[in-house]
């Protein structure tokens, strides 16, 4: 594992981001629009004095966390798609870079994106709605780490699908998180789901993170049991997605598709 090669690929993406309006919009514009939309909705709902919860905090907190997960998945899948769109996969893979280094660079890109979007969204909710995201204190670290890992696992899974079906599967790079959103207890607790489909929420790590986030907001204590279960489920997803990615990568090398992905 060579850090300079990981750094090279990371810089390649940062070069691209600094002047690409669509890419900057992906990081900043849509999440900021969501802050406006959900912020106004939360302010409206707050007038009804729903007992037991602070609507503004719960909804905006969930929204920010959800965007962190989204960014992590996007950065992984889209970093790979960029190389396909630019027909650069061959140049990358005839260099000595290893697959592990390539994947770690996408993970680091995810961290950069999460950091940027986290700062922008937190500042915005503070200025517009006087919501201090720092109220989570250090407990924010395990939450964000779990979301980052699950986003990476989803990103790897999406790349595996792209390796098999080419860019026909690229829509998933933009939308796969929305397939799991209704079952991830993002804006409502798992108990709000119909009983017959709750099991789906229990096998998805984000549901533990979002339940945990609401616990922190309600009781102020870090729900270690939820975070631990979420982390264990996450590890299983990461191992499965790594296996799936590697299987599809080897398959693409066997059938000569790696250089013909378009």
């Amino acid at each position, binding site marked *: 594992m060579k850090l300079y090669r990981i750094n*090279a690929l990371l810089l390649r993406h940062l070069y691209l981001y600094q002047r*690409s309006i669509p890419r900057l919009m992906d990081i900043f514009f849509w999440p900021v629009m969501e802050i406006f939309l959900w912020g106004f909705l939360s302010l409206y709902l707050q007038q009804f004095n729903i007992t037991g919860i602070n609507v503004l905090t719960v909804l905006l907190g969930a929204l920010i966390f959800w965007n962190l997960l989204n960014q992590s998945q996007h950065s992984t899948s889209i970093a790979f798609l960029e190389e396909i769109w630019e027909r650069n996969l061959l140049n990358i*893979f*005839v260099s*000595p870079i290893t697959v592990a280094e390539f994947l770690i660079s996408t993970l680091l890109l995810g961290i950069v994106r999460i950091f940027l979007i986290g700062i922008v969204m937190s500042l915005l909710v503070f200025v517009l709605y006087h919501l201090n995201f720092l109220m989570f204190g250090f407990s924010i670290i395990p939450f964000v780490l779990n979301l980052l890992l699950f986003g990476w696992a989803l990103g790897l899974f999406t790349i595996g699908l792209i390796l098999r079906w080419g860019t026909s599967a690229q829509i998933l790079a933009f939308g796969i998180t929305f397939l799991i959103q209704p079952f991830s207890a993002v804006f409502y607790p798992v108990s709000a789901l119909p009983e017959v489909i709750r099991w789906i929420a229990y096998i998805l790590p984000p549901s533990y993170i979002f339940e945990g986030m609401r616990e922190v907001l309600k009781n102020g204590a870090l729900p270690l049991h939820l975070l631990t279960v979420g982390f264990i489920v996450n590890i299983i997803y990461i191992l499965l997605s790594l296996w799936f990615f590697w299987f599809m990568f080897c398959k693409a090398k066997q059938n*000569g598709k790696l250089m013909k992905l378009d």
Partner: protein
Amino acid sequence: MKHTPIIEIKKLVKVFGSVTAVDCVSFSIEKGKITGLLGPNGAGKTTTIQMILDLITPTSGEIKIFGKKIETHREEILNRVNFSSAYIMLPYNLKVKENLLTFARLYGIKNPLKRVLALAEFFDITEFLPKMTSSLSTGQLTRVNLTKALLNNPDVLLLDEPTASLDPDIADKTRRLLLEIKKEHGTTILYTSHNMAEVEEVCDRVIFMNKGVITDDGTPEQLIKKYGKKDMNDVFLAIARGK
């Protein structure tokens, strides 16, 4: 005197479904030679090159570069190898300098900027460095691609039609550059091209492939003599048409 082969291919086979793209191909390439891998479309040249670069997994057979197997020593081997193709471009949405710096860093070049500037001067592309890659012409892009291919000062250079779609002047300059690289650095070059005059001028040896097998092997002079033709173009036609 026995020469050490830099590339050794033994009984290489690649089957895609019901199609055998490369059928029990064996050859070796000596250090510091320019070898042309020629043949009609679908002969198996690109598949062979992609297997050498570990982009395609062979069905069977063995590939050794610098005496080591590519599947077990990929990282070590690819550090000393590079590739350029007329059909593969660097990312269009980066500046030329950014692209070259990225690849210089990927190959672990100690002072990437110094290396990029030195090669840019050698290939006469210094003025393009601050430009977007998308703004360059085909000929300019080819020179940038070749610059990228030499960033790590490779011992082995694989070139897929490096002069395709270049005007005669730039194509000639490119050939001179290849001969200079070979002379100055002793670089081993494996080369595919459909330009037979170029092959005759540049290659020390030619390997002909057709329908996945090697059909002939020798120096351009030997092959011209063997087939009783006036140049390599006629030799190509004779071999491709099985005459």
